[in-house]
Every structure is written in structure tokens, then in C-alpha cells.
């Protein structure tokens, strides 16, 4: 396996492309302007950290919301299924940028009108931008993943749920031991891709003054009038993050038992 992989990489055209890539990287490193890097490095590290933190929290809370959303659509009574479906349709049918601006500018201009909100202990938090960014990203992830989870819950064979019910298993136990674990396994590969999409959505929060890595790069551009270098570095950072997410999900997938797929 290893040998075959090595040979794959040592084909003549791959070596040629690799060398070409190396030349391009060297040219970028020596010919472009990177003198701004030391000054902005701490800010960029902070920005990367904030991006990761937004991504992890929004994926976690979004998933917590997506499970009941999917369950309501797959098996709930109509008065739960309909609102869940409407929520998913609205979130998936409108641009995330619009949702972010609606929450930040809309709610942000509504809250200060109420004295009791301004006097509450939460006000110092509500005055900042990141709660709105986190809320918008969470709702967006929940909307897309609610739809994915609906399919996942439906894909678990009925016979298993019927067997569990016949054994007299209580409903919450059926969910936690049989339904949810299998639905989750079936959906893991999809979730990996969706999390990469979520990562690609994080720079949008820079438009509401959250200083994550994209905002830092924009500031470098505005301060120094250097256009391409910060953007190229930014692309590299996101490539690495995407690679890390894909790797992480492969690890999680490899740990559990393999799902048998029909066909």
C-alpha cells in the first residue's frame, strides 16, 4: 500500500508539477512583499484562533439544534414537523450574509430601545458583535444539518426500531441507543463536507466587525495597500483548515464500526 502510494507520487509528470509548484512558491516567497508579516503575525494568530473558535462552537450548537429539527421532520407530529421544515427552508433559501446582517443590524438596533435590556447584566455582551455572528452561524448550520439529519433518521431500518419497541424499550432509550447512533454514523461523511462549507462561511462575519482571520487580512490590505500577499496567505490558511477538518472527520469515521451500505 505504502509503496504503491509512493510510486503514485513519483510519476514523471507529478515530479514536474511538484517542481513547478516549488518554483512558484519560491518566487512568491522571494519576489513578493512579506515585510508586513512580523508586525501582523500576533494579530493573525489571534484571528485564526477566533475563526476556529467560531467554527467549533457554531458546529456544536448547530448540531444540538439539528438533531431535534431532523427528528421532528422525520417522525414528529405535524405541529412540530411543519415549523421545522419551514425553518430549514427559510435558512437554506436565503443568503447567509443577509441573515447575519438581519440579526446584527436588525436585533442590534431593536435591543437598545428597551431600557430593561440595556440595564440587564447581559448588555455588555449583547453590545458586541460576536454573539450575533455566533447565533447566525449556528442557525445556518442547524438549518442545513436539520435537513441532513431528517434523511439520516429516515435511513435507519424500521425493523430495528420496531424490534426495540417490541422489547419494551422506553422511547428516549430507543433514540439514544439505536436511532441516533445509527443515524449519526450514516451521516458522518456528509457532515465532514458540510463542516468545510461552514468554515468557508466564517469570513462573512468580518462584515459585522468580528475580527477573525479574514478581517485581519483586510486590515493589512487597508493599512499597507498590499493586495495579493495577504489574500494568498489567507487562502493558504483556509486550505490548511479544510485539510484539518477532512482529516479529523476521517479519524472519527475510522474509529466506529463500518456502516454497511446497500448495493
Amino acid at each position, binding site marked *: 500500500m505504502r509503496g504503491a502510494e509512493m510510486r503514485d507520487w513519483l510519476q514523471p509528470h507529478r515530479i514536474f508539477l511538484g517542481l513547478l509548484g516549488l518554483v512558484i512558491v519560491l518566487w512568491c516567497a522571494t519576489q513578493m512583499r512579506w515585510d508586513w508579516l512580523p508586525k501582523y503575525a500576533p494579530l493573525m494568530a489571534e484571528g485564526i484562533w477566533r475563526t476556529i473558535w467560531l467554527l467549533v462552537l457554531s458546529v456544536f450548537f448547530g448540531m444540538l439544534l439539528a438533531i431535534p429539527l431532523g427528528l421532528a421532520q422525520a417522525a414528529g407530529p405535524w405541529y412540530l414537523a411543519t415549523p421545522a421544515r419551514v425553518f430549514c427552508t427559510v435558512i*437554506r*433559501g436565503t443568503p447567509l450574509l443577509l441573515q447575519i*446582517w*438581519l440579526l446584527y443590524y*436588525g436585533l442590534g438596533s431593536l435591543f437598545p430601545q428597551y431600557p430593561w435590556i440595556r440595564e440587564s447584566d447581559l448588555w455588555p455582551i449583547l453590545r458586541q458583535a460576536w454573539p450575533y455572528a455566533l447565533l447566525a452561524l449556528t442557525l445556518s448550520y442547524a438549518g442545513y444539518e436539520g435537513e441532513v439529519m431528517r434523511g439520516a433518521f429516515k435511513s435507519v431500518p424500521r425493523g430495528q426500531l420496531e424490534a426495540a419497541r417490541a422489547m419494551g424499550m422506553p422511547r428516549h432509550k430507543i433514540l439514544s441507543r439505536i436511532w441516533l447512533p445509527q443515524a449519526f454514523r450514516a451521516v458522518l461523511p456528509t457532515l465532514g463536507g458540510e463542516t468545510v462549507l461552514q468554515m*468557508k462561511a466564517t469570513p462573512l462575519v468580518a462584515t459585522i466587525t468580528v475580527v477573525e482571520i479574514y478581517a485581519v487580512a483586510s486590515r493589512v490590505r487597508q493599512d499597507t495597500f498590499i493586495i495579493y500577499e495577504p489574500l494568498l496567505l489567507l487562502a493558504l490558511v483556509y486550505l490548511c483548515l479544510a485539510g484539518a477538518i477532512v482529516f479529523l472527520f476521517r479519524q472519527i469515521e475510522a474509529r466506529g464500526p463500518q456502516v454497511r451500505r446497500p448495493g
Partner: protein
Amino acid sequence: MGPLDLLALSPPGWGATLLAGLWNSLLIAVGAFSMGLVLGGLGAWGKIHGGPITRDLLAMYTTVVRAVPELILILILYFGVTDLVNQILVAFGHERIQISGVLAGIAVLGVVQGAYATEVLRGALLAVPPGQVEAAKAMGMPPLLMAQRVIFPAMLGLAMPGLANLWLIATKDTALLAVVGFGELTFATRQAASSTKAFFTFFLAAGVIYLIITLLSGWAFARIEAWARRGEPRNAGG
């Protein structure tokens, strides 16, 4: 002024501004989607039938474009393409030009769409039963006629769900152009909202417009798929 006055078409209302933005958004979405289809068709062909170098380059194209946020690609291409065109023009002794926002938007989103379309069309092309292609070859059908009569019809039904998704992504991605200050629907909405301070009214109105586009296109694509799959046996499970 009430919400309806604000959305009125005549000048104190902002309805006309929003509709102009909507027109720009649709123009860019249609242009980018078409360009994506052309790039995707070429990409899928290259990935399946191309030589090793073509395949590696295409793999790099689809990987990079699908891993880097659209916003950053838009900025890189927006600045990069404008710069490149101007350098070429200057080199040939012409004046610098300002590239129109619509064209730049179509070009940028088209490149992004092309990467996704490559994967969608490649999957559909691979799913065409090889026996049918072989049969057409054995009958001595010329390649173009074979593409038109055998491969396209078989691909269309398979590619439709993926293409419908891509179209929806195209309409929503046009909103990203608001960040570079191009006057499409989201940008027009923000302008209207910040001048009147009626944030909820305008953002909700724009949301409803986007939602109507989504629902209408979902319906249309379902019709097209049903048409493309006419005559297929309905023995699929689930």
C-alpha cells in the same frame, strides 16, 4: 413612513432600488451558472478522458476552489483579473479600462461554479451505462451525434439534482458581491436599510425575495428532472 411606503416603487420608497438589485443578482446568477456549466463540462471531460497532467491540474482546481471561501476567491479574482486585463491592455498600447461589476461578478462566480459543476457532471457522466455508449459506437455513430442522442439524455436526469443545488448556490453567492460593493440585491437592501434605519423591513423583504426565487427554482428543476427522467423505469428504492 410605514413598511409599505418604504417598499413603494416611486422614489420616497426603495422598491425600485431593490428590484434593480434583484435584476443584477439574477443576471449574475444566470451568467455564472452558464459559465459554470461550460467549465464543468470541459472539466468533467478532462477528468475522465484527459491525460495525467490535465487530470492533476483539474484535481488541483476543484480541490482549491472548494476549500477556499468564495469571498476570498472573489477578492483574489476580482483584483487579479482586473489587474491582468489592464496589464495586457497597457502592453498592447490601449487605455486602462474599468471592468463592469456584472462581468467581473459573472467571471468570478463562474470559476467557482465550474469547480462544483465539474464534480456533478463527472459523476453523471460516469453513471451513464457503458453498454449504451459501446452500442452507439458499434453502430458507427459519430461522436457528436452520440453525445447528443445517447450521453446527454442519459446524463440529464442524473445530473439534475446536483445542478439544481448549484443554481441555488449561484443565486445565494451573488450576495457575496455586496462585500466588494457591487449593487446587487443584498447591497441595495443594506443601502436602503441604513438610510432609513428600517432594518427589519428591508432585510425581511429581501429574504422573502430570495426565498421566492429558491422555491420557484426548486419547482422548476423538479419539473425538468421529471421530464429528463421520463421513460426511465420507476424501480428505484426508498
